[in-house]
C-alpha cells in the first residue's frame, strides 16, 4: 500500500476512494474524468460493492443521495457541464445533511465548451448552482499525490459534517501521471448510526427530507445549517504558503495553476524580488483570515487562474485596502506559461516600482 507508483490523477482518486472505504460509485462517462469510473467498474465488482453505470448524471447523483441515506460511503465523479446537471440534488443533499464525495475534473465551459483543462467551475463549486442557503466543502488538489490525499480528506470531512464534499480537479491533473503513494486512510471513522436509514428495527422510524411546510421549522433548519457552515469556516480552511513570509507581492492561485506559478516565484526569488505564492487548498471554506494576514506586509496580490477571474473576488475580500489586486488569466487551453506570467508581472513591477522595491 505504501509503494510509490506512477499514477494518473484520475486513478489516484479512484484508488484512494477504495482505501477510504467507498462502498458505492455511480457515474456516467464524460471526458476528462472517465478513467475514474472505468477503474472502479472492475475494482468495485471484485469487492462486491455497488457500482451503477447510471442513465444520466442526474440518475448518478440521486443514486448517491439514496446510498448516502442508507449510510454508505459514496463517490460520484463527473466534469463541469455534467456537474451542472447535478446541482439540484447537491442542494437537496446539503438540506438533508447527506454526505458524499463528488469529483469534478474540470473542462472548459460555458455550456458544452470542450475537454481542454480549465478552472472555470470555481464559482459552480464554491458558490453553487443549487437553490437556497447551502455550501459544499471544496478541496482543490494540485498534484497527483494530493488527488489521493484530498480524496481521503473529502470522505472524512463529508462524513464528519454530513455534507457533500467536492474534489475540484482539472483535466490536466486528471490525465497526467506523477509518482505518488497511496497511503493508509488517516482519519477516524465517523459513527453515523444515529441518522442512517437501515430499517427501524429497534428504534422509531426516521425520515430524511427537505420539504418543510412549517415556516418556523424551515427557518430553524436553515439557521442550524448556517451554524454548521460557520464551524466549517472556522475549523477547516487549508492552504499552502510558498515563500510568503517576507513577500511584498503575493500570487494567489489554486489547483494545477498554483504549481505552475511556483516556477514564477522561483524566477523572481532568484532575482531577489520578494514574491510568494498563497494557495488555498480548501476553496470552501476559503482561507480568508490567513490570506488577510499576508496583506499586512504585502503591497500587491496577483491572482492567477485558468478562467477569467472567479477566485479573484475572494482574494479581493481578503485584501486590506492597502493592497492592490491584479489578475492574470485565460479561460482554457495550454496553461499559462512562466513567460506569459512574468511578462505581466514585470510590467506591474515597473508601475509599482517606487513603493514595491
Amino acid at each position, binding site marked *: 500500500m505504501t509503494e510509490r507508483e506512477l499514477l494518473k490523477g484520475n486513478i489516484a482518486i479512484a484508488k484512494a476512494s477504495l482505501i477510504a472505504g467507498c462502498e458505492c460509485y455511480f457515474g456516467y462517462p464524460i471526458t476528462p474524468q472517465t478513467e475514474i469510473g472505468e477503474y472502479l467498474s472492475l475494482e468495485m465488482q471484485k469487492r462486491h460493492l455497488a457500482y*451503477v453505470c447510471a*442513465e444520466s448524471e442526474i440518475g448518478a447523483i440521486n443514486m448517491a*443521495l*439514496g446510498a448516502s441515506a442508507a449510510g454508505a460511503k459514496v463517490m460520484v465523479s463527473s466534469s463541469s457541464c455534467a456537474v451542472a446537471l447535478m446541482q439540484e440534488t447537491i442542494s437537496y443533499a446539503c438540506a438533508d445533511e447527506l454526505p458524499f464525495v463528488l469529483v469534478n475534473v474540470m473542462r472548459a465551459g460555458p455550456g458544452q465548451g470542450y475537454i481542454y483543462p480549465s478552472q472555470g467551475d470555481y464559482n459552480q463549486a464554491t458558490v453553487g448552482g443549487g437553490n437556497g442557503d447551502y455550501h459544499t466543502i471544496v478541496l482543490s488538489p494540485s498534484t497527483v499525490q494530493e488527488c489521493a490525499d484530498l480524496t481521503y480528506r473529502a470522505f472524512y470531512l463529508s462524513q464528519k459534517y454530513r455534507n457533500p464534499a467536492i474534489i475540484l480537479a482539472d483535466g490536466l491533473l486528471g490525465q497526467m501521471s506523477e509518482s505518488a503513494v497511496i497511503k493508509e486512510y488517516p482519519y477516524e471513522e465517523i459513527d453515523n448510526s444515529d441518522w442512517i436509514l437501515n*430499517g*427501524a428495527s429497534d428504534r422509531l422510524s426516521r425520515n*430524511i*427530507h427537505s420539504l418543510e411546510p412549517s415556516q418556523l421549522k424551515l427557518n430553524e433548519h436553515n439557521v442550524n445549517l448556517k451554524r454548521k457552515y460557520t464551524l466549517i469556516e472556522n475549523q477547516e480552511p487549508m492552504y499552502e504558503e510558498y515563500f510568503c513570509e517576507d513577500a511584498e507581492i503575493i500570487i494567489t492561485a489554486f489547483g494545477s495553476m498554483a504549481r505552475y506559478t511556483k516556477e514564477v516565484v522561483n524566477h523572481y526569488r532568484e532575482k531577489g524580488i520578494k514574491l510568494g505564492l498563497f494557495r488555498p487548498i480548501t476553496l470552501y471554506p476559503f482561507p480568508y483570515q490567513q490570506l488577510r494576514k499576508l496583506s499586512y506586509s504585502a503591497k500587491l496580490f496577483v491572482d492567477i487562474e485558468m478562467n477569467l477571474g472567479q477566485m479573484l473576488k475572494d482574494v479581493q475580500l481578503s485584501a486590506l485596502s492597502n493592497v492592490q489586486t491584479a489578475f492574470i488569466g485565460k479561460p482554457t487551453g495550454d496553461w499559462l506559461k512562466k513567460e506569459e506570467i512574468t511578462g505581466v508581472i514585470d510590467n506591474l513591477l515597473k508601475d509599482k516600482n517606487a513603493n514595491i522595491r
Partner: protein
Amino acid sequence: MQTYAKPKSIKENSSFTFCSGCDHGLAIKLVAQVIDELNIQRDTIAVSSSGCSVFLYDFLDVDCVEAPHGRACAVATGVKRAHRAKGNNKIVFTYQGDGDFASIGLGESIHSALRGENITAICINNTNYGMTGGQLGPTTPMGQITATSPLGRNKEYHGFPIQTVQHIAICEGTCFCARVALYDIKNIYNAKKQIKKAFEYQQKGLGFSFVEILSSCPTNWKLSPIDSHKKIEEELTKIYPLGVYKDIDHE
C-alpha cells in the same frame, strides 16, 4: 365480529391530510397493510417523491427518504445497492405520482426497470399535477380539461398521454407490473393483492416490480368523490385498461 384496525405500519395519531375523496390515503393504507402482512416494517425503506405523494412519510411508519422531483427510482437504486454492498437485504419502494414517475422521472423509471433494479415502484395516476392545482400531466387523457389545457387536451398543443404500465412491461428487467384501480371493493382487494405480489417479487429478488394505481382527484377534476370514482370506472379504465401486464411467474 371483524372490526377495522389501523395497520401497524401507519403512524399513531396521524390523520391523512389529503383532500376528501382522494385515493392517496387508501393507497397508502393498502401499502401499509401489505407491509404488515409481509412483516417487513422493520426492513423497509420508502422513497417519497414530489407532489401530493411526498407526504407519505407523515403517515407510513417506516424509514423514508424524500427524492428530488422525478428521481425516486434513482434514489431507491442507491438505497438498495448501498444496503446490498453492506450485505443487508432491505425492501425498498418508491411512492410517486404519474408526473413524477412518467414525466420528469421517466428516464430514471425506465432505466431502473431495464436494469432489473430489485425495487418496487408504486405510481398514483390521477391524470394531472394535483399539488400545484391540476395542470396537464403525462397521463391526462385526450379531451380532459385541466388548468393548462382549458380547452381540453388536444394533439395539436399537447400531444398524447403515456401508457406507463405498458412501457414498463416491455423492459426486460421488469418482473411484475400491473394497473389497478380503487373505485370499488373488488378492485381495492385486487389492488392490494397486486401490491403484495410486487413486494413479494422484490423479496424473491426477481427484479423491478411496478403497480400503477388509477386514483381519484376530486378537487382538481371538480367532481364529487362518488362521481370521481364513476369517472375512473366508466372513462379512465377504457383508456387505461386494468390488469397484470407482466408476471414472469406466468411466462
